[in-house]
Structures are given as structure tokens and as C-alpha cells.
């Protein structure tokens, strides 16, 4: 449903009638931003080694909200609160000293802060920008997972998410965030920009992400 809404909103943004240039906010101003990624995934073979895991299959939605500074026809930078929820089908197998702990997310999440900057490098018409969105930050591992040993009897422990890596001799409380996306932004009206992007979203990748940025500055 959210994908359909995002697509419809983007199409509407593309089709909206042009507004006079003098009504847009060309002076750099503050604004607010919010965004959603329906699903980010961590490719197992690529990053498993970083977490002392044999396999990694982690996915879930992402939500962002924050403040920005920029112009309607230029780029922007901002600071956002990031919430990445782990779907309950997310799994990883952590290599211990004696055994392999199969971990399944129960109520796990990443909450962090990220700084981003959108660099437009091309324009399509007067209302659409093409560019890259780069960002970085840090997120805390929170919530709970279930770790299971498979023997004659299966033995399952409910663990705080950071403790999932304890059997590998590590406790990971924080992980870095990174973002490198190809993006298209469309100006809707005088103050609202809708940006569709996709690409690298540490600790994974995302096919599509939708962001809304609303500038609060004075009209010219």
C-alpha cells in the first residue's frame, strides 16, 4: 500500500503544473523531512563476515524524520532520526567457539542518527532534479532476538539484540550507518520536494526509498 501511495504521489509531482519561479524558495532555508523505505535488506554473503556470522538474512522497513537546510531548486543537507525495524523473518547464524547460534529477530530494531546531503547534478525540466544522496551516521541495536541451538532437543534463548554476538566474543551495541543512493527529486508546489531514491543503505541495500522535504523559508 505504501509503495502505491509513493508512486502515485511521485506521478502527481511530475504532472503538477509548473509554478512561477519567483514563488519558489531560492534562498537557503530550514525545513523538515520525513521518509520511508518499504524494505532494506542485508545481502548475506557480503556482510556476514563483519558480524562473525555464517549467514545473514536481515530485512525490514526504515523510517526517517529530521530537519534539513536547502533550497527548492538546489541541494539540501539534513540530520535525521533513523528507525530500522528488523522483520521477524530476519535471521543470522553466529559462529561461536563451540557451536553455531541461529538467531531470529523477535522485536529487534536499529535506532540512530544520520546526516545526509543531496547533491543534484542534473535537472529534467524545471521541477525534477537528478542527483546522489550521501549520508552517514550511527545506530544502536535494540530489542530482542531468539538464539537457538539445534541438538536432540532445540534450546532457545531470548536475548537482547546486542548479546546475539556474545557467543562470538563480541557485543555489538552500535553500528555505523551509511547511505549512497541515486535519487530523483520533484518539486511539488512551492515548498515540498519529493525524492525517490535507491541504492546502498548501510548495513544493507534498498530498492526504493521515498523522502518528503518541506522548506519553511520566506517566499521571494
Amino acid at each position: 500500500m505504501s509503495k502505491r501511495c509513493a508512486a502515485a504521489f511521485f506521478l502527481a509531482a511530475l504532472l503538477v503544473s509548473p509554478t512561477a519561479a519567483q514563488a519558489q524558495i531560492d534562498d537557503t532555508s530550514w525545513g523538515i523531512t520525513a521518509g520511508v523505505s518499504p524494505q532494506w535488506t542485508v545481502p548475506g554473503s557480503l556482510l556476514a563476515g563483519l558480524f562473525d556470522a555464517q549467514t545473514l538474512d536481515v530485512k525490514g522497513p526504515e523510517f526517517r524524520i529530521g530537519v534539513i537546510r536547502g533550497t527548492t531548486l538546489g541541494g539540501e543537507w539534513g540530520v535525521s532520526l533513523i528507525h530500522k525495524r528488523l522483520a521477524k523473518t530476519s535471521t543470522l547464524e553466529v559462529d561461536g567457539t563451540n557451536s553455531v547460534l541461529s538467531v531470529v529477530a523477535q522485536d529487534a530494531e536499529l535506532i540512530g542518527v544520520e546526516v545526509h546531503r543531496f547533491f543534484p547534478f542534473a535537472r529534467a525540466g524545471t521541477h525534477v532534479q537528478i542527483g546522489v544522496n550521501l549520508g552517514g551516521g550511527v545506530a544502536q541495536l535494540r530489542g530482542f532476538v531468539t538464539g537457538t541451538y539445534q541438538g536432540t532437543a532445540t534450546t532457545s534463548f531470548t536475548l537482547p539484540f546486542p548479546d546475539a554476538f556474545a557467543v562470538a566474543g563480541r557485543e555489538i551495541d552500535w553500528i555505523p550507518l551509511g547511505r549512497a543512493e541515486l535519487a530523483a527529486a520533484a518539486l511539488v508546489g512551492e515548498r515540498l520536494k519529493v525524492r525517490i531514491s535507491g541504492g546502498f543503505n548501510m548495513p544493507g541495500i534498498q530498492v526504493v526509498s521515498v523522502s518528503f522535504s518541506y522548506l519553511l523559508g520566506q517566499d521571494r
Partner: protein
Amino acid sequence: MGTNIASSAQTVALRLALAAAVMTGATACSPGTLPGAPSSILVGGGAGRYNGAITYRRVGGAFTISEGSQTFNLSMVLRQVDQITGRFESAESSGSVQGVLTGDLAAGSFLATIFVATQARQANGTAVTCEGRGQVTGTLSGRNMSWTASSITYDNCPGLSASSAAQAVAVSPVPGDFAGRASMIITIVGGATVLRTTCPSGGAGYRFTVDMAETTGIDVTFDSSFLIEERRNFGALTSSTPDMPFREMKGGTRRSYEACSATPGTYQAFFSGSDANGNRFRVGTPLVTFAP
């Protein structure tokens, strides 16, 4: 004259009142008026503290242990359904027992696993603390408790094995504390006999929850792995030593984990570690039996 008579009567009344008050106080202090003589110790509720004697006999191994009678203090608590947990100490040993009780603490018998740390000396005279495990069978009759352990083997003292016998009398229904030592209590929620239901994966199986509690408020750190011993279909013993998924446990807190077996048999898990005061501990679940 009339005034003198009235004054005299008032004086007498005052003296009587004072005498009555003094007598009332004296009566309250009199040991002869206590509401009954102290009752004898009754065992049969949820716990008991026992004092007595324990002896160890070396059965094998090139170690020397004290084989004389040692003063023995045991505190035992009846946990869920039929499970008992106990802690004991003597002059040259200390440890815990976890098992299953048949009957009650006043008239019953128990089969338990004993974990004992025994002071021993090597052939060259070097003192060493040997950590042993064995099965103990005991009887409870009125205030009396006795147990025997025919074979205690010591993991860190190769070759050493010992037997043990203890007799003790209940001295209080309140379990004693062992100052400065953490107390890890491990029980099976719902009892040590598990009936067939459904495993979380969906198939039929024997599902149970193991509850781990520290009851004295002393933090504990578990060793990096724990031991699981299983008998599938009540056959040969198989063991595994998975990594301990959590190492730290705050004093006075509890954690639990779930297990499920698709086949009948037995299950027992053993944990070890150290408390915040540097004392080693070894504990285990009771022997869990999956009813066929």
C-alpha cells in the same frame, strides 16, 4: 475526722490501683505465662535447614581427601511441583544439589545431582579444589535426612572419584544463607516430567522452560560454555557444549530459556561460573524426563 477517713480511703484505692498495675506488668514478664512451650521443629512445608555430618570416601585417583566426619549444613527448598534445590557446606567441601522429590520433606525420598567442590591434595602435597558431580539418593523422615552418593567424579582432578554419605537433622524450616556466595537456582517450569505437546516449530514434541534465578543478590558470570546431556529414546548418553549465549547475570534477577525435544528421553543441562566475590559455582537442571 471525716476528712481523714476519706483521705485514707483514697490512699488505699490508689495503692490498690498501683499494686494491680505492678502485678499486671509482672505477669507479662513471667515466663510461666507464655502462651505455650516452644513447639518442635516441623518439616514438611517448603524448606528446611539441616545440621549433621558428612563423610567422603576416596574410591579412586591419586589425590587425598579428608575422609573423616565433617560438620554438615544443608538448606533445602522445595520448588515447583516436585523439584528440590539445596546448598550445603562442610569443613572441606561445599556445593549444591538439584533433583526430584517423591513424597514431601517430612516423608519422602529424592534423586538429585550433587555438585561439590572438595579440598584435595595431590601426591606431592599441593592443595587443589576438585569440582565433582554425581548422583545422590536421599530419604526424608520427620526431621531426619540422609543421603548417599556412590560415585562422585571430579572433572578437574583426573581419576579422582569418591563416595559420600550424610546424615542430618532439621533445625529450622527457614533455609540458611551462605554468606557471600551467590545462589543459582535452576528449575523446570511446571515440573521435571514433561508431557508431549507441540514444539515452537510446529511438530509434536516435549516443550519445557528452564528458569534460572540468582536469589542472594550477588552478580554472577557464567563460563563461556555450558553442558547439555541427553538420552534420546532413553538410549545412549550424548552430550554437547554449546557456547553460553549470555555471560552476565545480575544478582537477584532471573532468566529463562525454552527447549523442546521431538523424541522421548531425558535432558539435563549444567552451568558453571563465578560470583562477584570470586566463588566458583556449578549448578544444573534436575534430570528432565520426557514422558513416553
